[in-house]
């Protein structure tokens, strides 16, 4: 029986078995940001420890960074204090920091791949649950807490138990107007928000391998929303093409050697899995969340579920969701009026996301009642989007164009919902209060669906808008 990528990469990085029964795992790439790292550095200092492999840790600032008025000091003194702590810590321990002056700042899970830091076959850790994103390259990414950041800084290792591996096989072809975001929302809706507990997810099948690297990152990014800490996709030619020429990627002869290594860590044809789940991509339509967790998602064509017909363990959360959202059972999600349209986050703020959304808004105007804005995932994406004319298309349509950061995905900077606003969002979490207002309401959907909602002022099926313009689909 063959081995899967997860087991190969794990074994390659395993230092030893600890007395507790956990494995000590070497972490090939450690990414840090301003919110979850300051306490970890303090813990190191309290113990008189230092950073063992400073060249294997890279920093950026994303969570608290304002997307307007980025001049220092920041208007928010607490944000400024966190920024200064990261500047001091990276300087003191000789860690490379992609700050606002580097021209390479951005959301941590966007810049890792963009700079070629993220590579197939690596173990990657970051104090952020969306570290699963990096699995799109055939790496294993773990979201960790601050105590584990301390461990990785001190030893470049983590103490961790090996999870099981579930293969999620998605075959078929996505219809025009249906995207990677719809695949992952459907998977989470089917398997539930805790369906992945104890598992790493391997996404496979023709529909997955036809996706661009950006689409693959969207899928792996939201693994954690389905309870799986790790999600990955075996590397292939698409992966290698993306890697070529990136700043930190191997080059010249090294690149060919690297490809041989990357191929060697991919899952064998006859690899063993603890579980297999299959999904037909042909059957998918645009997905939208109606509730307060990412599993509460339905096709834009469907009506919201009847609580009494749901599995008993989901009913309490469903009732809570209806109360918070002020929706009624059986109501359609289509036609729901929105107040805000947010295009951004580590899930969907990459160049292909912006291109797709721009193709929808081009020549149209944002509904006056909607506040719409675009927060590109990184400074490099922002530059590219400007050069391609996308920024102009968004601005002409009435979107605000902002600087890179996490922004209204979690509302730690000035970008927050107000009161009971409803937001069509390309982000990853619709938890109560997630977007910065305790009463705020979030509808998760693909970037193209967000763009369509911004224009219509309500949730609509983006496929209808695409038909009207005859826009070709772009994966």
């Amino acid at each position, binding site marked *: 029986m063959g081995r899967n990528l997860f087991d190969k990469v794990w074994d390659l990085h395993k230092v030893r078995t600890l*007395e507790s029964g956990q494995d*000590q795992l070497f972490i090939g790439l450690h990414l840090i940001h301003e919110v979850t790292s300051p306490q970890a550095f303090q813990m190191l200092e309290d113990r008189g420890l230092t950073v063992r492999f400073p060249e294997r840790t890279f920093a950026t600032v994303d969570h608290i960074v304002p997307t307007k008025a980025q001049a220092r000091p920041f208007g928010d003194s607490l944000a400024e204090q966190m920024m200064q702590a990261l500047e001091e810590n990276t300087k003191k321990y000789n860690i490379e920091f992609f700050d606002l002056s580097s021209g390479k700042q951005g959301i941590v899970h966007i810049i890792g791949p963009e700079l070629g830091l993220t590579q197939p076959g690596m173990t990657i850790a970051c104090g952020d649950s969306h570290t699963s994103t990096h699995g799109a390259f055939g790496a294993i990414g773990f979201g960790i807490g601050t105590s584990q950041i301390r461990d990785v800084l001190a030893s470049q290792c983590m103490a961790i138990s090996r999870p099981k591996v579930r293969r999620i096989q998605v075959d078929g072809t996505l219809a025009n107007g249906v995207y990677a975001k719809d695949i992952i929302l459907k998977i989470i809706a089917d398997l539930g928000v805790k369906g992945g507990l104890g598992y790493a997810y391997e996404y496979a099948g023709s529909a997955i391998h036809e996706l661009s690297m950006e689409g693959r990152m969207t899928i792996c990014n939201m693994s954690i929303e389905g309870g799986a800490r790790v999600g990955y996709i075996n590397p292939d030619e698409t992966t290698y093409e993306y890697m070529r020429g990136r700043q930190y990627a191997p080059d010249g002869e090294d690149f060919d050697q*690297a490809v041989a290594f990357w191929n060697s860590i991919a899952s064998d044809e006859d690899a063993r899995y603890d579980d297999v789940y299959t999904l037909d991509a042909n059957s998918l339509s645009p997905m939208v969340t109606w509730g307060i967790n990412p599993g509460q998602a339905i096709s834009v064509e469907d009506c919201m579920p009847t609580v009494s017909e749901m599995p008993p363990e989901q009913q309490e959360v469903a009732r809570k969701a209806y109360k918070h959202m002020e929706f009624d059972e059986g109501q359609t999600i289509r036609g729901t009026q929105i107040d805000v349209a947010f295009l951004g986050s580590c899930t969907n703020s990459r160049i292909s996301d912006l291109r797709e959304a721009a193709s929808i808004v081009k020549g149209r105007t944002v509904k006056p009642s909607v506040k719409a804005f675009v927060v590109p995932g990184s400074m490099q994406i922002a530059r590219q989007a400007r050069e391609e004319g996308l920024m102009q298309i968004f601005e002409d349509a009435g979107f605000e164009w902002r600087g890179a950061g996490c922004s209204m995905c979690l509302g730690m900077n000035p970008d927050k919902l107000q009161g009971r606003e409803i937001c069509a969002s390309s982000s990853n*979490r619709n*938890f109560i209060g997630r977007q910065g207002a305790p009463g705020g309401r979030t509808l998760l959907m693909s970037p193209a669906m967000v763009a369509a909602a911004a224009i219509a002022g309500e949730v609509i099926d983006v496929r209808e808008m695409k038909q009207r313009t005859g826009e070709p689909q772009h994966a």
Partner: protein
Amino acid sequence: MPNHVFKVEGRAIPIRGNDIDTDQIIPARFMKCVTFDGLGEYAFFDVRFDDQGSEKDHPFNEEKYQGASILLVNSNFGCGSSREHAPQALAKWGIKAVIGESYAEIFAGNCVAMGIPAIELSHEAVEEIIRLVEEDPSRELTLLVREQVVQVGRRTFEGFIPPAYRNSLTQGTWDSTSVLLDAPEDIDKVAARLPYVSGF
């Protein structure tokens, strides 16, 4: 010095509901800090207080649960963000152990890294313990880590703590930094065999 965690005794406080995420436990705006100190007062903030800052109905606001040290929860507790600020806020409020149906993986890992045992019990057992505690909040509970049981008066409820977590708590190795630093040559050996570290 190893810091063994064999048992936690104390009164309990129930927080009902499945899929309680870490944004609910500690809203992101309170994470604008460079230490964990002071997070206790913000635990469950948005479900404890309304827009005007007035108290809402919530167990954390109830007099009878003040001083409790064991949190009672349902399933998939702590899902979402990896923020250790969530268990840190609970710990600063006074929580020393969690009893529930299931936990999100990163949350469970954060708890053990802080020396906080989180035991898994059946839905029925959790509901029964919540019933007993609501009936008499002054009841003392005992969580025994090695035995994987919760005792409430004369009643004993059997549960599960993953072996590695159980071991690291009872062996006092839950704070893993020194253990990980114990084998420097082994770490170097692994680094040397990784092509992306040592060269392709």
